[in-house]
């Protein structure tokens, strides 16, 4: 009886570890999707509505709490009127929240550069940057999804096999 319970615990533990790993991957992809959607909506907001950055960032609603919090923090710092350059604020806040964003260097670099799409003098310049950032992030998202899918194909079976071997050893 004890062995059965032990087996279930080991298998359950490995399965839940693998599940949370896959969930974390999905969350990261979801966050990147939300960021891409934010940049796309920003293009519309700039072109059609001439929104102001501070109010736009403050009022933006997203399904991802990390993105919302990041934008609110950027708006809060901009409101203080002590930063000569808005891009500095964008980078500062994203660096502080790097752990929450949890992307590899290349993707994180693109996210930092996306800020240039908001703080240029001319609308056309901003829109150009935003479109470029969206394209780069979409490519990065697709690459990352493929890479993660490959990893899952390897590590899920390995994890389960490892769990079974551990069970056999314990029995």
């Amino acid at each position, binding site marked *: 009886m004890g062995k059965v319970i032990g087996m279930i615990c080991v298998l359950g533990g490995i399965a839940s570890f693998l599940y949370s790993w896959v969930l974390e991957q999905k969350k990261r992809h979801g966050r990147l999707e939300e960021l891409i959607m934010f940049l796309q909506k920003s293009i519309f907001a*700039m072109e059609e509505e*001439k*929104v*102001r*950055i*501070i*109010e736009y960032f403050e009022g933006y609603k997203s399904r991802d709490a990390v993105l919302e919090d990041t934008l609110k923090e950027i708006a809060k710092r*901009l409101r203080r*009127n*002590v*930063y*000569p*350059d*808005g891009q500095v604020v964008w980078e500062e806040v994203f660096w502080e929240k790097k752990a929450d964003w949890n992307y590899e260097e290349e993707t994180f670099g693109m996210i930092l550069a996306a800020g240039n799409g*908001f*703080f*240029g*003098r*001319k*609308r056309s*310049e*901003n829109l150009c940057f935003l479109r470029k950032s969206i394209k780069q992030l979409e490519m990065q998202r697709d690459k990352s999804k493929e890479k993660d899918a490959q990893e899952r194909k390897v590590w899920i079976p390995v994890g389960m096999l490892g769990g079974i071997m551990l069970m056999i050893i314990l029995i």
Partner: protein
Amino acid sequence: MKEIINIFPVAMRESLQRISWEGLEEIRVRIGWPAELIYDNRSKWLGNYDTIVDRHGLDEMLNYITGYSAYAMEEELKQGFVTLSGGHRIGVTGHATYDSNGKYGECQVTNIVDIGGLNIRIAHEKKGCAKDIVLLLRNGQSIYNTIFFAAPGVGKTTYLRDAIRILSTGDAVFPGIKCCVVDERSEIAAYHMGKPQNDLGIRADVLDACPKEMGMRMVLRTMSPQIIAVDELGKEEEFHMLEQMRCSGVKVLGTMHAGNLNELFQNQLVKNCIQNGAVERFVELVRLPNGARTFRIYDGQGNLLWEK
């Protein structure tokens, strides 16, 4: 004055905290020079040479002024001014780019780049300054068609604004009148993000950033105004609308640039208005050497009726 101090570079704010704001009318910022403070009857430089504004400083100011959204204020910058919260106006100078594809082949400014100077006009709502004038402009329950005129910087818009407020609010003797304000340059109501920064009274409706001639036509059709107020009349089509207003039963309150009555009457458009009776009163505003203001009221033919 926090909203003004906060648009300056961080390094200059301490100096600005120490200045006297009493009677301050303008702060002029030019690249390579200290900021100039202009009061009623004098001017002085701000601080020492640590308060010289350079290119970076001006870019920093533009970020604060536009809320880091210079792209969203392209239209305002094209017009050469931006309105701040609190009703303060910032005039912008620099290198103008233009094209000549406007109506009738005229040039239209497409942008002002390489901004090199700012003129921050401090908004001073002087409630009650037009009280005596409005009393003398009354004509039954309404007023005479009136133009305020003076040299730049004397306070035409301030008096116009207060007149609108008094007329639209009313008092124990005279009920409030429906006033429609066509505020082409956002100077009268000083709209900032959809909200008027100046008090125009409870019966004032504002059409912001609309060309005067078009705006007067629109409000006449849709807002059933008793008075239409406009600032800085100058174009032929605007005076043409004044003549139309005369036939529609709506009274007009306007302003014009002119140093004195003779200068005003040399303007052909004004002469036409005098001939056809479109303007019934002219109010001349005068700045005295001590900075105080006084006024003279003339009838439609230029005869002096009242002098303070």
